């Protein structure tokens, strides 16, 4: 069980890293993008804007923590 947990933690830290909110934000942005694209409306702008917002928010948090 310990090895399974360590294995999971390794991959979590490898892919998600220091800020899990970025991963959650990306999933929400992609879901919103898929929902808008399904209606036939242009949805290409959603992911880039979400990425910029997530990056700025994460950097702001990191800067506040020093």
């Amino acid at each position: 069980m310990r090895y399974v947990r360590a294995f999971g933690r390794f991959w979590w830290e490898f892919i998600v890293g220091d800020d899990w909110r970025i991963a959650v934000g990306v999933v929400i942005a992609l879901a919103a993008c898929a929902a808008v694209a399904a209606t036939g409306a242009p949805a290409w702008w959603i992911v880039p804007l979400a990425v910029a917002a997530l990056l700025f928010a994460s950097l702001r948090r990191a800067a506040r923590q020093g």
Partner: protein
Amino acid sequence: MVEALTIVLAMGVTRGWRAALTGAVAATFALAAIIAALGPALVVIPIEVLRLVVGALLLVFGLQWLRKAILRASGYKALHDEDEIYRREAAEAAAAGTQLRGGTDWYAFTVAFKGVLLEGLEVVFIVITFGSAQGHLAVAVAGAAAALVLVVVAGVLARGPLERVPENTIKFAVGLLLTTFGCFWSAEGAGVDWPGNELSLLALLAFLAGCSWLAVRALRRRRVSLRPAEASA
């Protein structure tokens, strides 16, 4: 790759080249086995699903790199010091006792193996995601192999720590590219039609580079403005 080479060089110089190189070669074979196992498995998954999942993973992974590179460039995170890593690894290796089993120095073997495997996993991740999303795994593997040869040649020429390689600049560029491709593929997998198709990759790259530049500037300014306040506190 640069960190892995630094570790192998430190082991080779302090403990002997045989065990260090055997460890590095064994880890390279392990990484090749991972690519060989995962590559064909990914071919069976529909391309749209693959682009969504792989693109999302690439996007999260790329943003992590970009975030760290911006924090390093603005002084909020220490720059990777290959010279310091080399000195630390060499000192630890010199202090460790010699355990010879079957004529092999297992300390040097294990440290070199671990270093190459862990650092190489990042490369494998990028190779598999790029290769599978485009359907050209062989081309991605060839590109990574060329990069590996380049790093090894640079290491042999430097014969020491690779502090001259501007690591954060390279990581910044890689982070930008991973995030750009991640954005493009994940959105495409979610059903988006990009205006201008592949040409929008250039616009995305420029947009993300601009955002990163603004972030570095803002963080540097914030750091400078906080210094007098910290000093007076």
